[in-house]
């Protein structure tokens, strides 16, 4: 088994935009943005790759924390940010395309968040 070396760098939310901008400047491509519910908070992984060097920026936020969009740096990030908002209810500010909770058109009321289940509609909605 050839296990790929992967780096996870935990950063404060305030450093997110600067760190992403640096990676963009270094020629990294955005692979994905994914969210994980952990007890009363969320971990958000921003994954990047350059020449098969896989790097993750990880921020941990509480449910009500507004997360700045990185779609001004990586245009395609809107797809992951809207998904993160629709599935977990995380308010993302400044997205270049904001679906206001309607990108995933399920009959089930969103978000599907574990920790916010039963609470009111998410902030972007």
């Amino acid at each position, binding site marked *: *088994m*050839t*296990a*790929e070396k*992967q780096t*996870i760098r935990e950063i404060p939310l305030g450093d997110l935009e600067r760190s992403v901008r640096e990676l963009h400047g270094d020629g990294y*491509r*955005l*692979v*994905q943005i*994914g*969210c*994980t*519910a952990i007890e009363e908070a969320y971990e958000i*992984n921003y*994954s990047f790759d350059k020449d*098969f060097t*896989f790097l*993750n920026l990880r921020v941990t936020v509480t449910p009500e924390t507004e997360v700045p969009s990185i779609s001004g740096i*990586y*245009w*395609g*990030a*809107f*797809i*992951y940010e809207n*998904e993160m908002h*629709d599935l977990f209810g995380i308010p993302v500010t400044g997205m270049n*395309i904001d*679906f206001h909770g*309607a*990108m*995933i*058109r*399920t009959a*089930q009321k969103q978000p*599907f968040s574990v920790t916010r289940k039963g609470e009111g509609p998410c902030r972007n909605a």
Partner: protein
Amino acid sequence: MPERIVVPFGPQHPVLPEPIHLDLVLEDETVVDVIPSIGYVHRGLEQLVTKREYTDFVHVAERICGICSFMHGLAYVQGIETIMDVEVPDRARYLRTIWSECSRLHSHLLWLGLFADAMGFESLFMQSWRLRESVLDVLEDTSGGRVIQGTCKVGGVRRDIGREKLDDILRTLVPFEQQCRNLGDVFLNDESVKNRLQGLGIVTKGEAYDLGAAGPTLRGSGVPIDARNLGYAAYGDLDFKPVTESAGDCYARCAVRVGELFTSIDLIRQAAETIPEGPIEVKVTGTPDGEYFSRVEQPRGEVVHYIRGNGTKHLTRARIRTPTLANLPPLVKMLPGCQLADVPVIVLSIDPCISCTER
């Protein structure tokens, strides 16, 4: 100034086998903006990981999609094996490669048929699907399943392919390769096909990279990124070079897929000829405790299975980033400027798999 109107495209449309919706903003017949939306068949499969044992979830992973089923299973078990530090036997790595490339072959032939159908070239559609049948026969013969193979497991594979059957596959590949050449010749050299595809839905090299495109959508714009170069399964032992094209249009994306038919045939041939003898699985004990982003090159591009365990038999998170999700932003950039009549062909050129996207 022409009046702007919004034309809904999908979720039901003759060119779409699965539901996705696009709001097309038009000025006369020209597309000026596109807003995509998904979720018509959202299944919440990721959440099932907390309810199924980690050894069983491979069956769920394989059912994310009926086309790249095997590779979803592979990406998942590979993630678990990395977290648990399981060394998979060499023979299993080679078998995984053979089934992966068979999956890619039948997926590309399926797409080529659908693409021909979208262009109105019905005989080419039927020819592509006729060829696909012989790959499905190999899959059925070696795994018992045409759609879901069910051969991947944590620690190896469930079934072996004997020498005799491997030789049968090698013999089948000889006429099959020639038939693929004949088919590819029409896709790449027929004037009516070229006129329909060239210069349509262009994404430049820089845009494709910056927008996070994956697979043939990325390589069709000249970016030689292919997750098989990570060397997972047996790819590290085999001679392999990604297929790229530079034009970034529908024709280039089609040409990449045609080229990849021959790469897959070559990889199957190499793997079948050099597969080592030995066991096909190892016993796995314990439970996964850790996290890993498992990456595999599916027919539509790189898939990422993020897997996280806490030392119990249930994982705490499985997040699957499918290639179609990554190719939606490039699609939004491809469409503005095209004519309404070109939309079906351009949408199909990214080979959208909504089943994967609605995991």
